């Protein structure tokens, strides 16, 4: 196949769109994390996120976050139309820095948890959840 100038141009546009689009989708997630941390550096350890590897029903996916010594935990679903999920703030009588809930996931995607630790540092973890909306367990 011979590439005309028009083809080349089209290919280039397509390639550009491919590289730009995923970045756009994640930009708001990164913005939200930056807003939460105030631009501080984020460590890798200190927060645990428990989520199923495969969720048959994306309407109710059980997750649990646990970050010893955290004052706040932000949970985001990177692939949802609105990535924010919940922010847990622990008060003086919190028995542990753990909470479980059920969330909605639009499709297979990464769930992100960012914890604000009491010493002022931040920790982040992410877990990919496969979502089979059909519910037939495929």
């Amino acid at each position, binding site marked *: 196949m011979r590439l005309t100038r028009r083809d080349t141009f089209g290919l280039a546009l397509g390639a550009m769109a491919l590289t730009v689009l995923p970045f756009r989708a994640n930009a708001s997630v990164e913005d939200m994390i930056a807003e939460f941390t105030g631009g501080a550096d984020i460590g890798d350890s200190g927060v645990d996120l428990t989520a199923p590897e495969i969720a048959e029903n994306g309407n*109710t996916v059980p997750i649990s976050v646990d970050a010893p010594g955290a004052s706040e935990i932000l949970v985001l679903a990177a692939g949802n139309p609105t990535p*924010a999920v*919940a922010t847990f*703030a622990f008060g003086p009588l*919190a*028995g542990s820095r*753990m*909470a479980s*809930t059920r969330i909605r996931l639009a499709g297979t995607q990464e769930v992100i948890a960012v914890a604000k630790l009491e010493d002022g540092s931040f920790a982040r973890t992410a877990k990919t959840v496969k979502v089979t909306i059909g519910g037939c367990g495929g």
Partner: protein
Amino acid sequence: MASGVKPRVKVPKSAAAGEVVTLKTLISHPMESGQRKDKDGNVIPRSIINRFTCDFNGQNVIDVKMEPAISTNPYFEFEALVPEAGEFTFTWYDDDGSTYTETKPIEIG
């Protein structure tokens, strides 16, 4: 006010002073995300519970900011420290301004 909203909480009847207890809460609420469309293609307006708090004798245990990605009938499980006998107050804040409150006493024993 969304219809049929009924909070349910599970709190142990008694605990030792200083013990950490697990609390489970569930509230029946449609949690309309604002993303769904009805048969005619009109967006169904968002109507969710946007905040949940739990306090014990006026001191905060947990304060959760909720977004549309929380499932229908929001469920939360967390742990609280019980320093003395008293009462847990659970409050849910609806988008429409209404609040739903449930209280549960706990004894030391």
